[in-house]
């Protein structure tokens, strides 16, 4: 069972990485508008010459 002393900190490290990714995406505004992108996804991309950009990161 002493493998726990290695595995649990590893798992926590993974958590830290995912939390970091979440914090980055939230701060860069990816959760600002949760309605429109869902509507956009069902449309084909035809006619949108440049795909919509996420708002600039701050």
């Amino acid at each position: 069972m002493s493998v726990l002393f290695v595995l649990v900190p590893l798992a926590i490290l993974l958590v830290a990485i995912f939390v970091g990714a979440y914090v980055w995406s939230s701060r860069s505004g990816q959760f600002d508008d949760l309605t429109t992108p869902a509507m956009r996804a069902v449309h084909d991309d035809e006619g949108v010459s440049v795909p919509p950009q996420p708002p600039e990161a701050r």
Partner: protein
Amino acid sequence: MSTTLSPEFTLGAAEQLTCAHCGLEAASGDTRVSAGAVYCCAGCETAASIIKQSGLGGFYALPERRPVRVSASGRSYVEFDHEAFAAAHVRYAADGLAEATFYLEGVHCASCVWLVERMPMIVPGAVRAELDVTRAVARLAWDPQQVALSALAQALDQLGYPPHPFRGLRADEVRKAEERKQLTRIGVAAAIAGNVMTIALALYSGVFSGMEREFERYFRWLSFVLVTPAIIWPGRVFFTSAWQALKNKRLHMDVPIALALAVGYVQGAVNTLRDNGPIYFDAVATLIFLLLVGRFLQHRAQRGAADSAALLGALAPVTARLVDGDTVKEVPTEAILPGMLLEVRPGDTLAADGVVERGHSSLDLALLTGESRPVSIREGEQVFAGTVNLSAPLRVRVEEAGITSRLGRLLRDVEEGARERPSVVLLADRIAGHFIAVILVLAVVTAGIWWKTDMYFAIDSAIALLVVTCPCALAIATPMAFTVAVGRAATRGILIKGAHSLETLTGRGIIFLDKTGTLTEGRMVLEAYDGPSELRPWVLALEKTSRHPVASAFAAAWPDVSAMEPELVEETLGGGLEGRVAGHSLVVGRPEWVLARTAAVSEEVQSLSVLEARLTPVLIALDGVVVARAGFGDPLRPSAKRLISQLGAAGWEVRLLSGDAPSVVQAVASTLGIPASQAEGGASPERKRAAVAAAREHGAVVMVGDGVNDAAAIAGATVGIAVRGGAEASMAAADVYLARGGVEALPELMAGAKRTTNVIHRNMVVALGYNAIGVTMAMMGIIDPLFAAVLMPLGSVTVILATWRARTFTAEAT
């Protein structure tokens, strides 16, 4: 991709033509036929031709398209190309592209996202368009070398999305940043709570199945390490807020929460260090997460109100035409000062208040007064910013501009109304203050009782009491019930923004109803016609040349009558139409105006009884003799009468508050059974706000309206309700928006509010019941802190389950 429009060109069951663009019945408007398709109006025809030319016929295959008529303003938007506009609203990127943010009218569904974001295909030179559909805000990027902004704006306008520069950009960014922070905190708290809970699970099962000492110590230290960032990052908001409250010598919900968090964390840390006794880290982490979620939901619900003033401001024009000697030049609105002379062309929106010096035209006052009929204006008369000139050029001497204009004052009224709105103290917050005081006293008493017996046991019991009474269930009872109710209401077409509105709507009070568009349908309809039916093609001959609402009412009332060809038609503003049809002279218009042009009135017309007071009369004369009479009115919605009696039965005092003529308002009031003293006509926006403010002294006030003229009153009422089809500004100012049209959903809203409040009360009884049991057991010394930590979340779980099961807004419930 299909470019033909034929699937939409359908003959309905009743041989009814539907518009190839919007899908609504085409026969009711001024029907147009082009390229083998039928359109209900010129707006839809233009929009369809743009869509077709851009190769975007796929638009008509979108499943989520909703039938909405295109309402283009037809403006030129030349002011968007002005330097002053660019300086204020356009940003230039390094790659030579220009970018600006607009508020779009008429955005309502996914198909709008599709169409607006295909601007690059519609207008060459547009590079990117990005629409936020919930807020109707679009960011456009374009190449200024290739295309002017006015061309982009015109295209949007013709598609039915008239753009307005978005003025609240700064405030919007501040709010967005705050929301991002909240979301970040929630995510971090969730990750920590989940992991600490998992470890706690291992520890709890270890208690029963036996666990080696070293692992137990290891897991206790792990949860200590994990929970610490939750306290100092997401949990910090509770400590700062509690500290603020204590500094102001007030007790609110955050004080016991901060106390429970601090006690739990410190005691857990001490017990971890001395390697004995329970740790509360799982409870602490979960508590932080749940409370942050509740708070975020409440914040989201309230954010809409902040938009209202910015939105109204977007409706005012950006530039005006200044008369300078012999030349006319465009200047930004900010540069207009009292005493200047402005030229206002047809289609222009007035930029300032003033007096007409030259010209004779008709104005659309809908933005200010809510009146749908055009008003005739001549020299010497007062005109106001925000109104639209409809027919002929005017020269206007400016008297008030900017924030001192009537529109400016109205904007300020909306802001002030929202600020001075009585803050409804929610039941949970009222209870919280007393609750905390009682708990703190009880904790001290408990410690006192056991102190002499055993000091450690006394401390443990006091801590158990604090933990078991942590107001977690109490704090989530209201937001949880509210959020579930709001979600269910939204599926029924009732959008609720303010948390306090549901609690207010269950009580008694005064309810003000706007007439036009709220109780009535908000359009002119031919309700009475006394005259020979052979005359109808003749009347239509004259009316088809006019854009007046009476003309479209005639056309809508007689869809199967084909108009004759008129000769020489002349329209007199504020009078009527006169012309020749098949060699005979025909006059249609206001009674005084028609009588002044005729020699006699036929016996049939003389013998007619007086028209109902709420109808607007029109006379028709053929060859100098009045031969027919028509009455126009704004018909009441079918459900209006039942609604008034339902509201009365529920204990509300119903009053009418309308900008329409007092005689019309009185007539409507008597039809609906409202006493004449409770119906007020001719009310200006300022008067409406004052009436609502005065009534607020007697208790809760609900204002139901649809227009911009109602916006200040809606913002100032305890609960403001906007109905569908109204101005967007009134929607933004309101707490509740009825998307189903008219006031039919009002009784359902009231009933749902009642049920939701019942759920909240039941939740509180459950939460307080748990606490009462916990307190008793802790004081008796029966439970130790570990058992308290297990018992505490039980109350919250019960509350959540009970709320989820409750039927608040459902189809069967009404």
